[in-house]
């Protein structure tokens, strides 16, 4: 790169701009897997959110002793579980819950992480020092264990408690990333120039620096969304995720903790597992394509 950039420096830099969404879009279209993933995700979201209108949670979770552990059939596309409830319906509802909650956590963590990262990185000094010490501390905490403890000791545990505790841990990664980027960005002359031109700090942060970080934030949020689905379903699998009243894909997979079910009733855990896998994979494909777009070095030829 160094050598080539040097050789045709003048015009090369003119033609290749690091700017804007069009590169992100182009990279997505170029990458077939990412494109397929995107279409799949769009369709899937439509289906699961559309299913609100014709899948009734009451009916799905109803105990039906006449059809316990029934294999897939026309009535029950993915069979039934130990209580005779329809697995397909559970998967639809579980997927909807898992995605919605992962989304909420991602957004909250991003908003908090972004704000704190921007402030710490831009102002530096004591503020930055204190924030970074705090972040370093949270990072050494045993995250999963503390979430599990929290889940068991919170008196009125509900979805919001879960979102809260997850966000409390997950914003730090984002804040660190953003801070590092801002630290580099604020040394660039355009930020210095804005200062000398009398632009107030909040404007420099919001309209100067933030747009230059937008692609990184988007990429990071996409990858985090996938990660958060994994963490949520994992915790639900262990029995310390979403509350009982809110079924998750992980809850369905936890049927497999019974060796008998794991071995003999594949429909009770395998479809949900594969769905988690495919979902995360698809989101990651999109995320990786976006990441390549922001990193010129890795861009597809």
């Amino acid at each position: 790169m160094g050598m080539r950039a040097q050789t045709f420096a003048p015009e090369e830099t003119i033609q290749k701009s690091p700017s804007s969404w069009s590169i992100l879009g182009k990279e997505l279209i170029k990458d077939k897997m990412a494109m397929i993933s995107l279409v799949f995700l769009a369709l899937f979201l439509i289906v699961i959110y559309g299913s609100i209108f014709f899948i009734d949670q009451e009916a799905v979770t109803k105990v039906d002793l006449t059809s316990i552990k029934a294999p897939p059939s026309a009535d029950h596309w993915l069979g039934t579980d130990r209580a005779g409830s329809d697995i397909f319906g559970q998967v639809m509802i579980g997927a909807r819950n898992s995605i919605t909650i992962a989304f909420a956590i991602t957004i909250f963590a991003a908003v908090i992480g972004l704000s704190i990262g921007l402030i710490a990185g831009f102002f530096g000094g004591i503020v930055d020092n204190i924030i970074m010490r705090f972040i370093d501390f949270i990072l050494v905490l045993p995250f999963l264990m503390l979430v599990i403890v929290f889940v068991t000791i919170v008196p009125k545990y509900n979805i919001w408690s879960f979102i809260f505790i997850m966000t409390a841990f997950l914003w730090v990664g984002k804040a660190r990333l953003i801070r590092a980027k801002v630290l580099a960005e604020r040394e660039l002359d355009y930020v210095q120039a804005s200062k000398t031109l009398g632009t107030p700090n909040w404007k420099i942060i919001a309209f100067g620096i933030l747009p230059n970080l937008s692609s990184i934030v988007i990429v990071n949020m996409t990858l985090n969304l996938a990660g958060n689905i994994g963490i949520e379903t994992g915790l639900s699998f262990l029995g310390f995720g979403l509350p009982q009243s809110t079924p998750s894909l992980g809850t369905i997979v936890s049927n497999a903790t019974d060796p008998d079910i794991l071995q003999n009733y594949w429909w009770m855990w395998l479809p949900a597992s594969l769905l988690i896998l495919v979902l995360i994979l698809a989101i990651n494909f999109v995320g990786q394509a976006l990441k390549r777009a922001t990193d010129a070095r890795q861009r597809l030829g």
Partner: protein
Amino acid sequence: MALLELNNLKVHYPIRGGFFQRVVSHVKAVDGLSIQIEAGKTYGLVGESGCGKTTTGRAIIGLNKITEGNVTFEGQDLTKIAHKNQHSLRRDIQMIFQDPYSSLNGRKRVLDIIAEPLRNFENLTKEEERRRVQDLLEKVGLNPEAAFKYPHEFSGGQRQRIGIARALTLNPKLIIADEPVSALDVSVQAQVLNFMKEIQKEFNLTYLFISHDLGIVRHMCDEIGIMYRGRLVEQGNTEDIYENPQHVYTKRLISAIPNIDPGQRQASTQARQHILSSYQQDLNNLLDPEGKPLALKSISSSHQVALP
């Protein structure tokens, strides 16, 4: 009265270390610098990397914190003005940056870049704003249509002119130019230098021209200060410095300028060797116990040297 006067300016950075990041010592980037710049002139601040010239420029415009000393601009001491009022005063001082690539925000249109100071200081309608920007673009020799393009569509030289247009927006009196052409190719350098001279006449600008390139400084400047370890070792007009350098450090700098006449190669190499040996012998006598240059002494009305 000088337009800008630096009086015993000091900029020290703390070095932290030891337990709990206490301040253990200071980097004295600028350590007692006094200069005066007359209106309409170009003052060249010259020195090698690490001598504190860039820090000086940034301190004047408020990007670095001043540890001690005064910066007097048009009779007002900038270091004594409340932070709030500094902005309005600083519209008279603007800066041109070294790197034409990083100094323009790639996400903004040229219009937004040049209009940034207008939006901070003046209340214009969109229409007035656009007209002002396009006027400026024409002044710096660019097509008014350029306002609606993004920085990456321009070459290095053009981008540097956009940076200059931005600095000119508020009709400043003083422009601090920090190595404005060192990132550019020779032919483009010439373009920007010519242009800076043009607008100086047109807008009656005063320049503080910071550079390591003695050839360019000679071309551009009326007064020159040679900086070493945060202080001046010599100050004078262009003739004083280039024809009659007194301090051994100045002599060494001047002798290091490559001689463009290959015929005199032998002679200049010998002269350089000669100066180097006297530099090695004499320099320590010309520094105070802290290793800093001594105070300046006048040897003529225009020429001061840090000699004992």
